[in-house]
C-alpha cells in the first residue's frame, strides 16, 4: 500500500490523485479565494491559477518539510496576492456576494483540523491581543488594505502596518522556522 501523500502522488503522475486533491482541498482553496477577493469571477480566475500551480509544483512537495495544507495554502496566498497586483487594486469589498457559504461539511475541514501547523497558528492567534488579532484578520483573511483598516478602526496607518508585521513575524517564529535576530519581544501582545 502506498504511503505517498496526495501531492506526492500527483507529482509522480498519478492522475487519480488529482480528483482526490480536488475533493480534499478544493473547497478550502475556493473559500480562501472567495473570502479574500470577494468577487466570484475574480475568485474563479484565481482558483484556476492556484490549481495549475499546484499541479505543476506537486513534484517538489516534500511532506518532511511542510504539510499539504501549508504547501497548498502558500501557493494559494501567492496567487491571490498576484491577482490583486494584476488588478492594481485591493479586493472588491463593494461587490460582496459571499453569502453562499454553507455550514462546514464534516468532510471538508477534517483534513485541516488534523494539520499541526494550522493548530499552532490557531493557538498563537488565540493568545494574541484581540485588537491585534482583528487587524491581522482584516488584512490576511478579509483582504482589506492597511489604509482601509486604519480608516475602519480609526487607527494610525503606522499602527496597522506594525501590528500586521509583528503578527506575521510572531506566527513565523512559533512555527519554528529559524527566527530572525533580536526579534521583537512584544509580538504576542
Amino acid at each position, binding site marked *: 500500500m502506498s504511503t505517498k501523500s496526495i501531492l506526492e502522488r500527483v507529482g509522480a*503522475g498519478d492522475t487519480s490523485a488529482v480528483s482526490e486533491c480536488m475533493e480534499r482541498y478544493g473547497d478550502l482553496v475556493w473559500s*480562501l479565494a472567495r473570502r479574500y477577493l470577494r468577487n466570484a469571477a475574480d475568485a474563479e480566475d484565481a482558483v484556476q491559477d492556484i*490549481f495549475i500551480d499546484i499541479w505543476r509544483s506537486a513534484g517538489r512537495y516534500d511532506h518532511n518539510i511542510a504539510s499539504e495544507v501549508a504547501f497548498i495554502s502558500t501557493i494559494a496566498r501567492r496567487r491571490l496576492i498576484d491577482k490583486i497586483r494584476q488588478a492594481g487594486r485591493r479586493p472588491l469589498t463593494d461587490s460582496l456576494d459571499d453569502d453562499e457559504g454553507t455550514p462546514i*461539511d464534516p468532510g471538508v475541514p477534517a483534513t485541516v483540523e488534523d494539520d499541526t501547523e494550522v493548530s499552532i497558528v490557531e493557538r498563537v492567534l488565540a493568545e494574541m491581543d484581540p485588537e491585534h488579532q482583528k487587524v491581522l484578520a482584516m488584512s490576511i483573511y478579509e483582504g482589506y*488594505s492597511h489604509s482601509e483598516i486604519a480608516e475602519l478602526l480609526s487607527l494610525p496607518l503606522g499602527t496597522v502596518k506594525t501590528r500586521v508585521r509583528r503578527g506575521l513575524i510572531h506566527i513565523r517564529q512559533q512555527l519554528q522556522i529559524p527566527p530572525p535576530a533580536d*526579534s521583537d519581544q512584544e509580538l504576542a501582545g
Partner: protein
Amino acid sequence: MTPNNAPERNRLYELLADEASAALDTSDAPELARLLAHNPVVARDEILQAAALAQVAFLRRATVSRMPAGLRERLASQGEALVLRQRGPVPVARLVQPESPPAATRQPAISRWSSVNGIGWALAAMLAIALVVVRNEPAVFAPTTDAVAGRVSLVNGASDVMTLPWAPPTAAGYRGVTGDVVWSQSRQEGYLRLANMPVNDPARTQYQLWIVDPERDTHPVDGGVFNVSATGEVIIPIQAKLLIRSPTAFAITAEQPGGVVVSAGPLLVVALSKAG
C-alpha cells in the same frame, strides 16, 4: 548571525510581512530584493507561509463555501491532462512525416506583425519593451512520438480545438517555415507543428514559445523552451506556465539556452487567431 546584520534581517522580515499582506510598496521592492540577496538563509516564503496558515486558521472560524461543481470538474480535467503531460522524462527528438500540406501556405501573407489588426499592440509591445513574464523553472521540450500521438489525440478528442496556421514568416532564415498551432482551451493543451524550422544549436540558442493572451495579462505567457534538431516536420508540446484564457497569438523567439523571462524578440514565427 552577527549582531551587525540583525537590524538588516529584521528589516527583511518586515518587508516580507508587507509582501505577504499584499502591502509591499513598490518603492520598497528594490530594498527587499537587495536584502534577500544579502540574506540567502532567509526563504522568501517564510512569512508568506505564516500568512497562508493564518488565513486557513481564520477560515476555520467561519464557514466553508462549496466550490461550484462545474469549476471543480473543469479543474480536475485540466489537472489530469497536465499531470499526464508531466509524467516521465521527454525522450529524444524524432522527426515525423507531414500529415498533410501545411495549412499556412493557404493563408494570406502578413508582411508586418505590427500591421496585424487587433494583435499588433501585443506583438509590438513584445518587441518594443522588456517584458517581465511569469515563468517557473526552465524546461526543454523536444519533439517526440508522444507529442505526435498527443496531438492526434487532442485533435480527435477535444471538442474545442483551435487550429492556427503560422503566418508566412518574414525573418531571415525562417521564410520557409510552415505548420500550425493546435490548442484546446478546456484541456489547456496544445502542440506546435513546424516544418522547415532551422536547426538550433542548444549550446548557443534555444527556441522559446510565447502565448499572447490579453484577457489574462498584457504580458505574454511563457509557453516553453524547445530545440529543433533536424529539418522536416516536428511536433512540439506547448507547456504554458499559467492558465491560458483566450490566446490571440503564439510566437516563437530564439533565446539563450534555458530561455528567458524577458524577451526582446525578434519574433521569428507567429500564429494569429482570427479573433486577434
